[in-house]
Structure formats: structure tokens, C-alpha cells
């Protein structure tokens, strides 16, 4: 590999990972050391108290479980529902132009969450889903759906219609041909879409804050932010919470990053 390329990649890695290192570094420090100047690159008295405190005092285990369940379910649900719509749009949607669809994909992102949170609260309150995992799952699904539908539509469009028609001529129903022929071909694309949805939903804060009230359904971002107190912020614990929250996603990304790029490569973004 050419020298320059190597140096540039190394530079990118250093810049990317330095703050991450700082987060890990801070998570192992006592509060008094966090504010030492000059800053120490490695804690003088490393401690795991920040991590243990999170799980014994701050319900982080509950928040972690909620986050994984809610984000995972929302990603899957939006994938399932959105793919159906995407298939319909790909196969039958000559009339619904790309422009229109683009607009509806982007529309939820144009509105600051602050404008939607109170009405959403009222809606969920009516159906008794405040402070329940299912409530948040439904809201996040709704927000992911346009994105999912739009991404999956391009994937479906990549599959030639002839393949399905050939199968149907051979006697298979549309459903059979969908399941046996189309689905396997778009699975990398589905993986990519699921991953993006997952990451976005996992770190969402605003709706999780208002639509849940206790650790029964609240998620990691809410639990982590709670460490910002009225007159003090517990930096060590916050850093530890950040590490704990990021670990599942990083592991997940490591496992599926091959699928991620391959999936996107399948023409999603054309």
C-alpha cells in the first residue's frame, strides 16, 4: 500500500479514536482525577467504581435491556412492514414518483422532535402505552418506516421481474416466489437497512425521555443523561455509561459490517 495512503488512514484512525480513548480513560477515573490539570492520559488510580455504580445504583442493566429490546424490535418491525410497502412500490408503484417518495422519506426528519412529543404523548396515553416498551417500539417503527420503505424499494427494483414471473409460470404463488426467490436476494439489503434503523433508534433521546417515566421502559440515552445533575455532572459515570451503551453496537457493527456495505452496494442508494 502506498505510503501516503497509509499515513492518511492512520491519521483518520487517530482523530476518530482519540476522543473514544478519552471516554474510556475518563470512565476509569475518580471524579477528582477527571478535573486534574494537566490532563492525565491514563488514570493514576484506576477504578471500576463508575461501572459498578451504574449497575447497582442507576439501573443501567434495565436501561440496557430496554434499549436492546426496543431498538431491536422497532428495527425488525419497521423492516417487516416497510418491506411490504417497498415491494408494492417497486412492483406496482409506477404512479408514485421518486420525488414524492423522497419527500415522505425525509418529512419526519424535518420536524424538530420537540413539536411532536406532546401530541404523541397524548395519543399513547389514550391507548395506555405510556411507559411501556411497546409504546416506544410503535413510535420508533413509525419513524423508521419511510426510510426503510425507500431503501428497500431500490433493492426490490434491482431484482428483475422476470425471475418472479418465471417462478409463477412454473406454478408457484406470488407469495411463494416472494419468499423463495426475492427475499434471499435482498437479504443483504435488509441487513443494511436494519442496521441503520437500529443505530438511529438505539440512540434516540427525546421521545424516550417523554414517552417513558421509569426504568420499566426507559432507554440508555435517558438513563445516561440523568447523570447530568442540577449542580454537578458525574463525568466518570457518564463516560462509563457511554462505553457500556456503545459496546453492543460496536460488536454488532463488527459482526455485520461486511453485510452492511455489501447490502448498500446492491444499489440501494441508486
Amino acid at each position, binding site marked *: 500500500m502506498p505510503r501516503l495512503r497509509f499515513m492518511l488512514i492512520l491519521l483518520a484512525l487517530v482523530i476518530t479514536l482519540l476522543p473514544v480513548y478519552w471516554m474510556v480513560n475518563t470512565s476509569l477515573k475518580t471524579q477528582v482525577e477527571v478535573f486534574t490539570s494537566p490532563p492525565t492520559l491514563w488514570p493514576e488510580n484506576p477504578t471500576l467504581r463508575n461501572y459498578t455504580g451504574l449497575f447497582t445504583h442507576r439501573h443501567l442493566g434495565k436501561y440496557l435491556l430496554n434499549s436492546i429490546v426496543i431498538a431491536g424490535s422497532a428495527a*425488525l418491525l419497521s423492516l417487516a412492514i416497510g418491506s411490504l410497502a417497498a415491494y408494492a412500490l417497486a412492483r406496482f408503484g409506477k404512479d408514485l414518483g421518486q420525488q414524492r417518495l423522497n419527500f415522505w422519506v425525509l418529512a419526519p426528519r424535518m420536524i424538530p422532535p420537540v413539536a411532536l412529543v406532546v401530541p404523541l404523548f397524548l395519543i399513547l396515553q389514550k391507548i395506555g402505552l405510556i411507559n411501556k416498551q411497546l409504546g416506544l417500539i410503535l413510535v420508533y417503527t413509525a419513524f423508521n418506516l419511510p426510510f426503510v420503505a425507500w431503501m428497500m424499494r431500490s433493492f426490490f427494483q434491482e431484482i428483475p421481474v422476470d425471475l418472479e414471473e418465471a417462478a409463477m409460470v412454473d406454478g408457484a404463488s406470488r407469495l411463494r416466489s416472494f419468499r423463495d426467490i426475492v427475499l434471499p436476494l435482498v437479504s443483504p439489503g435488509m441487513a443494511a437497512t436494519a442496521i441503520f434503523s437500529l443505530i438511529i433508534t438505539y440512540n434516540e433521546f427525546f421521545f424516550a425521555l417523554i414517552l417513558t417515566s421509569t426504568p420499566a421502559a426507559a432507554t440508555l440515552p435517558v438513563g445516561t443523561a440523568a447523570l447530568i*445533575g442540577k*449542580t454537578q455532572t458525574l463525568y466518570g459515570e457518564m463516560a462509563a455509561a457511554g462505553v457500556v451503551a456503545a459496546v453492543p453496537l460496536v460488536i454488532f457493527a463488527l459482526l455485520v459490517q461486511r453485510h452492511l456495505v455489501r447490502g448498500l452496494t446492491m444499489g440501494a442508494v441508486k
Partner: protein
Amino acid sequence: MIRRQFLRDSLGAATATALAGCGNKDQRVQLTFGSYADPGLDILKDEFLPEFEKTTGIGTEWVEADFSGWLQKALNDGETKAGAFDIYVMDDLWVPRFAGARYLANLDELGFQTDEDFLTPALDLGYWPPKTGLRQPGIDPKAKPILYSLPLVSDVQLLFYRRDIFGDSPPSTWDDISRVARQKSNPAKRQYGWVTRGVKGNPIMNSFFVLLHDFGGTEFGENWKVTFNSPQAVEALEFYLSLLPYEPEGIAEFDSDQEGETLLQGNAFAATIWTGWCRQTDDPIRSRVVNKIGFAVPPRKVNRVAKLGLFMAGIAAAAPHKTEALEFLKWFSRSDIQIRFARAGGIPFKMSAFKDQEARRSSRWLDAILGAMTLGIPSPRTSDWSKVEDILGTELNRALLDKGNARQHLDAAAAEATAFLKSAGYHAD
């Protein structure tokens, strides 16, 4: 395939969680407290709630969110009458809004009895309309004040000073602070004579508040006329700015956490800080100045005041367990419990607890806090104060960045605030 595995795992986890939630319906009542995080609440949370549970058999769940997040949630809960919380832990600044909008239950009606042992400045904060001072437009000036909330933990701005620098007797005037800062500061070596808050809005306003009143100024005059650009106010701001050379460089971005940390790192000689920090000064994992910090009432100029910032507790209007919530408030307000709270290191709100000998021995800041509470004044009691504070706080921050121009900035703030108040129905002149 990965996707199927993931699907299976998620479904499994979801089912397990759902099932876990279904079983074991606890028969006893569970009180839900909503709050923000603060070291001042730790002892209540960790020691006294479990004791309450044991004594009365009423369960407690303490839910925390970040400070602004909790305000949002509480407002939302109150407005929509969702009833997710039984007790709101509030900043005393919120009481006008919560009480005025009827998000809180009427404690008089529920049968709460106050007694003489309550610290008057603390108890008065819980009444709406306010017992003393101006009433905002829309409130009947003759309406009888009703008790809507009780003090939970006393919090007031106290002077924290380095005993090894000031000697054993605390600085008693602002000129003392100024003089010692001038003589002994060494900013190059990170030895700052004073540290304060500079972030615009509420933080800088809290720091400026004491100076404003000490120099003889006020926020409002008769009929809500804006008076924070009076000559006394300008003098106060000029004094605030005069300490800048002895303060850390980035003071404009300092909030209470950095202010406190600078003191605890041993880099500042003195500061006016909230009482939640008291216990931490002697904790080695938090502080480098163990046993070096003294506590006193904030210094004087013409007047001597301290800023009140109590944690208040109110019962939500839509609380599912009002009777049990009242039980808690009655229990925690008992003088004997308050004495034990003070002995455990908490900050009480009853006189007998402040005077208890054992408590005074183990918490060496208690006397100073009592003194400060007695001289304490709160922010103006109106639900529109947040907006005025934001306006004034932004101009104060600008003056800080300018390192001067006190009069211009205060005039600008006064003009904008007057315009806002007029549009909100105040006479303001």
C-alpha cells in the same frame, strides 16, 4: 443467517421481558418519586427512603432524569394529568409554575399541618400565591396563600473559602474577597482568587443575584418595574467584572459543576456554591482540599443576603396515591426524623435539626447554612421569571465577554425585559 439469528434473539428477549413484567404483582402501594440527580438528595435516597419503606410498608421508587429533562417530564405529566408520578421533586423556581397551573395537590386541603419548627424562609417557598412580595398579573392580590409544596432538602448558596488562605475567620465583606484575590492570586499557576458561573441565563444570574442585592439593588420595584439597571445594579455588575482577572480563563463557559470542581481541585480561594457540595469537600475521591474548606454566610456589602435554591416536594394533582404521598411528607417533616437526617449529613429544614449538637459536630457546615437560610431570599415569585432571567442572563454573559460595558448591557436587558413583561400583561413601569 444473521438476520434470522437476530430475529430469534430479539423475539426471545422481548418475550422474556414481557413475561418477567407480568408476574409478581406487588400488593403494597408503590410511591413514585420523580426527580433530577443531585448529591444533596443522596442521603434521602439511599438511607431514608428505605427506612420509610420499612416503617410504613409503603414502597418507594425514585426515578431520575437530567435536570431539564425532568422539568419537561414533570410539566408534561402535570399538563396531561398522566399521573405517572406521585411526588415531584422540584427546584423552588418551579413552584410558581406548577402551583399556578394546578399541577400540585392542595396540601392544606389534604390536611397537612405545619408547625413552628419549620424554617420560615424554607416553608414560605411552598405557598402560592406567595406570602410576601409582588404577585404576578392574573393572580388575585387578596387571595390567601395555599400550601402546595414542602421543602425537601435545604439548599442555599454558601461561601466556601480556603481556611489556609483566609485564615480561620471567613472573609466577611466583598472587599475582603477582592483584596485577598488581588494580593494572592496567581492565574498563571492556576491559583484563582475567585471562581463563579458565567454561562448565560440561569447560571450567571444565580451568581450575580447575591451581588445585586448586596449592593442594594433589586430585580423589580413597585408594580414589577424593572430595576436591574439601577446605579446599584451597575455597581454590582462592575464589581463582578472586577474579579475577572483573578478567575479562570474560560469563565464564560463555567456552570456550577466547573465552578465547584475548580474549588475542589484546590485552584480557587473562594466561591459561593450550593450546599450539595459541602460533604464532598472532605471526600478524597472528590476533593484535593480535604479539611481545608471553611463555610460561611456570603459576604456583605451594603446588605447581606444569600440565594435560596431549595429542593421542594409536591404531590402531583393526578397522583395515584395521594394519601401515601402525604404520609411520606408528614413522616419526613417530623422533627425527630429531620434531626436524624441532619446527623446523617443531610441538610434539614427544621430549626431543631439545625440546633442539634450531634449534627453540628458531624456536619461542620450546618451553622453556616442556618445563617445563610435566615438571610436567604428566593428568585422573584412569578412564572415568567424564567424568561426574564434568560434575557438578563444573556446580557450579563455578554458583559462578561466584553469584560466591561456594564451599564449598556444592563440597560439593554432592562429594555428587552420591560417589552416582554408588557406583552405578558405586567405594568412594568
